[in-house]
């Protein structure tokens, strides 16, 4: 698979865990790794209809002289080659632009805020904006490096969930890992989900890749999530809810990300399968 994963290296123990996760991900799905070692505390990402300024906290600039060495050590251990990104364009002299034509991007739960905030139920505002505007799915790592041995897709029937499902197929194909689908039924029958799959012509792929389709007909969502194996990569689509909607109603994504510690791969509303 000719895919690229973009990783911003933080030269701290926490950043090491994140990089290990990226390396593992790349090795599993055969993607190539692109690492950016920041020289400035901020950079811009220009998306199709948005520009996001990412303000890194100063821990990203910790001892720049060892950063490259540390990153290379980890790469050597993981026996993987990576390309180091050198920003070519600058909006202002201390404000590089980072291209956004990657296939995946790896983020810790929070890029810019204090690392004390990294925990369940919190995803930093800039990570959210990246998820919302990016055409690529974002890999949100668990705080500590954790290998995953299966893929779990949350499928709720929406258009974006179908994208997430397709993404799951793609990962399963590339990594040859078992894929299971989880659906929490919401007032509709089991058949209606199968109908959606049928309409999208995904039946064949469902049969080929999916080992199990868990449909929870009863019980609270949060409790049912316990069935997701601890060592699964969770793939899901995020709907572009506005902030207000999220506060009042809460999204599935919020519930999932505040309940499980797995690595999450989130396909945002702008995620396209064209590439």
């Amino acid at each position, binding site marked *: 698979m000719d895919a690229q994963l973009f990783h911003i290296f933080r030269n701290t123990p926490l950043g090491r865990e994140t990089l290990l996760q990226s390396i593992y991900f790349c090795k599993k799905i055969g993607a190539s790794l692109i690492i950016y070692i920041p020289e400035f505390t901020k950079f811009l990402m220009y998306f199709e*209809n*948005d520009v996001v300024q990412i303000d890194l906290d100063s821990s990203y600039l910790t001892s720049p002289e060892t950063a490259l060495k540390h990153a290379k050590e980890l790469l050597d251990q993981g026996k993987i080659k990576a390309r180091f990104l050198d920003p070519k364009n*600058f*909006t202002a002299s201390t*404000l590089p632009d980072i291209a956004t034509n990657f296939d995946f991007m790896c983020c810790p739960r929070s890029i810019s805020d204090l690392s004390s905030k990294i925990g369940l139920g919190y995803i930093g505002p800039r990570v959210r904006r990246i998820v919302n505007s990016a055409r690529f799915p974002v890999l949100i790592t668990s705080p500590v490096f954790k290998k995953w041995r299966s893929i779990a897709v949350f499928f709720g029937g929406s258009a974006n969930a179908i994208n997430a499902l397709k993404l799951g197929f793609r990962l399963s194909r590339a990594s040859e890992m078992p894929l299971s689908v989880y659906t929490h039924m919401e007032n509709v029958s089991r058949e209606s989900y199968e109908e959606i799959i049928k309409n999208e012509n995904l039946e064949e792929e469902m049969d080929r890749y999916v080992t199990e389709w868990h449909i929870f007909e009863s019980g609270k969502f949060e409790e049912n999530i316990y069935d997701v194996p601890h060592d699964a990569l969770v793939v899901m689509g995020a709907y572009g809810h506005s902030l207000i909607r999220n506060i009042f109603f809460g999204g599935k994504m919020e519930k999932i990300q505040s309940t499980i510690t797995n690595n999450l791969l989130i396909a945002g509303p702008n995620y396209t399968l064209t590439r």
Partner: protein
Amino acid sequence: MRILRLWRHPGSWTIFRLDDRLLLILIAVIVGTCSGLAAIALNRSLIAMFEWLHNFRHYWWSFIIPAVGAALSALFLDKIVKEGAGHGVPEVVYSVSRYGGLMRFRSSFSRLISSCLTIGSGGSAGPEAPVVMSGAAIGSNIAKFFFLNDRQRITIVGCGAAGAISSIFNAPIAGMVFSIEVILGEWKSVNIVPIAIASVAGTEISRILQGNQIAFSHRLFNIHHLDIVACIGLAIVSAAASLLLTRFLRSMHGVSKKAPFPIWMRAAAGGCMVGIIGIFLPIVLGEGYHSIRTMIEGAFAQGLGIVAVAAFAKILATSLTLGWGGSGGIFAPCLVIGSLAGLTYHRGLVLLWPSVPWVNEGCFALLGMAGLISGMLQAPLTGIFLIIEITGSYEVILPLIIVSVISTTLCHYIEPASFYLKELIEKGQLLRPGTDARVLSDLNVRELLEKDCISVKQNVLLRDFVNIIKKSHRNYFPVEDENTGNFLGMIHLDDIRSYLFNPLMYDAVVLGQIMDTDVEVVYLDDDLSKVLRRMDANRLFSMPVIANKKFIGMISKATLLDKYRKELMVQTGF
């Protein structure tokens, strides 16, 4: 819910999908109004701040005030909104030319606050560039809100800038011309119409809130033929002054970069020096509109020596403020320096030829402003229209044109890039629409990929290869590793043609032995201009494209020409 979503996507409404001009005009009104309001807000708060601080001017420690203001503004930019210093116009032009005018939301207010702190406290800088940046960012964010496409967004960014300039000077044409000449660089009716509307909206807002006042009104001038001849000399003087200002700004920038303090300390040091100059020559403080007014009215009392020194001091103060990290533009200082230079020149003339009935010195001050603006911005039209509009004096149009044009030309000789665009040109990032650089930067390697090459494995015998050649359309064959599929080298038919007709070689040679391993390769994210330069340097017509160590296609000059031409036609068409 659906209606709500549709409302945010006016671009997809049936009436606007086919012709978006009406849509752009509607949005231009909104943007022009908003950026006009931003400009007035800055103007009002500047006046308020200046008046409040005026109470402290007579204390001995008053020179600290600009230092505090500059430091606060640098701190605000660096720590709170986390933006770079500088006046922001290059950023606008950059984002217009590379990213379809996408700008951050924070840019729409950051420069307003920081420049207000710098200028209000007495720093020698202008509020115009910050207002342009804010207006452009407001436009960009409104366009983003409505999900407009790049071309529409660029126009709306231009509208924002035009509205801001129109509003702050009460000068609609100047705003329009500035936006098109400096920001967009593209004279097309699809741009001009919405921008004109935005200028009107911006001006109207300013007239409603501030009254229709011409910034520097004056009495009539009687211009004689001799005055027009004298203008040539004035053009030279103002060109020299603008060159001096450019050089000073740059050297100050260099000096302050080397200073081993944090940014806000540098800004404070610069502000402090400005404050000290201000004690002796208070004219250098602030944006200086008041003193321009007195000069144009011909009521500036000081003698030739003082005026000349003041002109020089203003140049110094401006470069100290901006070069050391204060925030603001050069528009207003240019006007002040220009009028001081004009005054100096006039007094010099009177001294040399006292018997000639020269026109009032206010006229020369006015012409000097035009000379400086044209020289610094290298945008003669902006200079001419701005001065006419802010002084309301059409009768000086002839000398005005002469001064503007000559000053622009002279400055262009010595400084080929204008103050706003210099940074971009140095980085090779000035990508005006329809230029070679723009076409090449818009195209990317992926779009030019030719995928009809047949890959071969390295252990294939030449005999089998001959059969592969039969089926191929191309002269190039990438060689891959059997197991990993990694790219190893290229075979070009030209290189092996002689062996092809020698059947003895057929079983003696495998492709791994005859391939060229020392090939220039291209990666997917390479810049096309660089790729082309490499092709030219190595006399190549095509190069293999590699991604993730695997061959994915060829890129050739022939396809490039085809795509380049299409791109150019689409870009320059209407």
